[in-house]
């Protein structure tokens, strides 16, 4: 039990994620979490506005079930399988974040400076979540997949488009952290 309660090392977590990808393929499906955003658009009636959403979303209910499970899994892991919940970040990361104005780095899963009620109710905090979410939703469909579809499934099946997409993920991520964060925070 002690091993489960501690954070899991990367060499355990990585292979387990590959196992999840493989079992979904074994079930005749795919490991693609961002597809659910498209499905949710279709359920909301988006096909009236674009043919992109004209598909039988009922055939995607299995994937929404994975999402439901993921929410439950998140609840179980955080509330019953984690002690402590602190994240053992590198010292350099903690001090870099402190310079940017992030206190208590690693004491929570997500920083209070962005995700707490107070932060969300401020215009800047609200805009960070809105813009961040929009870029994720827009970019993932433009690129035809996200971390699960490209970085895990696509790279595991040695597909060049996925390698290009992952390089794109890093271009965007590095620009945000190294060039935009110093202005934003």
């Amino acid at each position, binding site marked *: 039990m002690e091993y489960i309660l501690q954070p899991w090392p*990367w060499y355990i977590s990585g292979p387990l994620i590959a196992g999840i990808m493989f079992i979904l393929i074994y079930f005749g499906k795919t490991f693609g979490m961002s597809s659910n955003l498209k499905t949710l658009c279709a359920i909301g009636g988006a096909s009236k*506005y674009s043919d992109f959403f004209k598909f039988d979303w009922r055939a995607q*209910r299995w994937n929404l079930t994975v999402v439901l499970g993921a929410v*439950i899994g998140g609840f*179980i892991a955080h509330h019953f399988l984690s002690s402590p919940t602190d994240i053992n970040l590198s010292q350099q990361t903690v001090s870099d974040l402190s310079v940017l104005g992030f206190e208590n780095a690693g004491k929570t899963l997500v920083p209070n400076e962005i995700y707490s009620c107070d932060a969300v109710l401020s215009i800047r905090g609200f805009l960070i979540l809105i813009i961040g979410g929009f870029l994720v939703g827009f970019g993932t469909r*433009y690129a035809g997949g996200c971390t699960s579809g490209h970085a895990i499934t696509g790279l595991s099946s040695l597909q060049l488009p996925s390698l290009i*997409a992952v390089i794109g*993920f890093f271009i965007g991520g590095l620009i945000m952290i190294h060039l935009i964060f110093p202005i934003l925070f």
Partner: protein
Amino acid sequence: MAKYLKFLVVGIFFGIVLVKSEAVSWYRIFEMFKFQSFHMYGIIGTAVGTGILLLLIGKKTKNIEGKTINIPLKEKGVFRYIIGGSIFGLGWALSGACPGPMYILVGTGSFSVLIMIASAILGTFVYGLLKNKLPH
């Protein structure tokens, strides 16, 4: 209902693994893009390494329906992947969550992530509207 149960179980396991691996943490994503820890690279690296082996072995077996294993193929192209990928990367680094973790974080009690999810749905909708006008 029974046919969905296995997907629910896979989802629960996925949620647990991503929380226990700390991949759902905003801080781990920041640290990764700062190249200050091997943790996230270790996760992605071992996931891809194991994934390559599993798919190589899996190709020789049948899936649960008795059909050959079908690995989804991505369309050829460069532009959409580099530009779309970069847009995704900007959002990933800012919000610290990609489309799996954002749902899992709701389960951990970070309800403000719901705002991000709503906005991600909007982003996908806007892509659908503009799809035919965008270069791919």
